[in-house]
């Protein structure tokens, strides 16, 4: 499985060099926890984490 990076800005996970959500290149390999958001409009979890786009996110990024 390719190494995944978490965006320090929006916590989105990606295996590329650029965050697919916010376009930031400030990525980290030190992350933990996982949230897969499929329906941000109806998800309380996404609302609580202020996630507006579907995707995979880390809970904690260092």
């Amino acid at each position: 499985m390719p190494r995944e990076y978490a965006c320090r800005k929006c916590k989105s996970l990606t295996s590329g060099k650029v965050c697919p959500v916010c376009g930031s290149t400030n990525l980290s390999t030190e992350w933990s926890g996982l949230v897969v958001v499929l329906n941000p409009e109806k998800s309380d979890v996404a609302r609580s984490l202020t996630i507006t786009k579907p995707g995979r996110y880390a809970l904690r990024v260092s």
Partner: protein
Amino acid sequence: MTAAVTGRIFAVKTTGGQEKSVANFIANRAQMRSTKVYSILVFEGMKGYVFVEAPNAQIVGESISGVKHVKSQIPGIIQFQDIEKFLVTKSIITELNVNDKVEVIAGPFKGMQARITRIEPVRKEVTVILLDAPYQLPVTVDADYLKIIQKGGS
């Protein structure tokens, strides 16, 4: 006033260490079948459990049936308030004090124990003296790279 609750959270028991692969599988299946799964959660500190947010238990049951490494679905609904504290992670720097004994959990000094000598809250940096080094070696590291082992100067 709080917003109306739309999704309910259900716990799924999995094989320890396979939480992320189970979450990815459930997400892929939900996308393929267009089932009403809203989100899937994996907490680092809760080994063997995946949390699925969906309108009802039947949808969760459908999305986990036959999935490898899934053991069972826990009956009942998890209150959102109970998992909310795991979602909002405050920075560890607020809990750190000078003279605390810590372990470095990331970076080049990973696994080494240290004692805090200075804290810079604005930059989220902490200066520590590595205890495992043969001589006093002050190192400045990110606060998130530290885990408290012992509070105070004892």
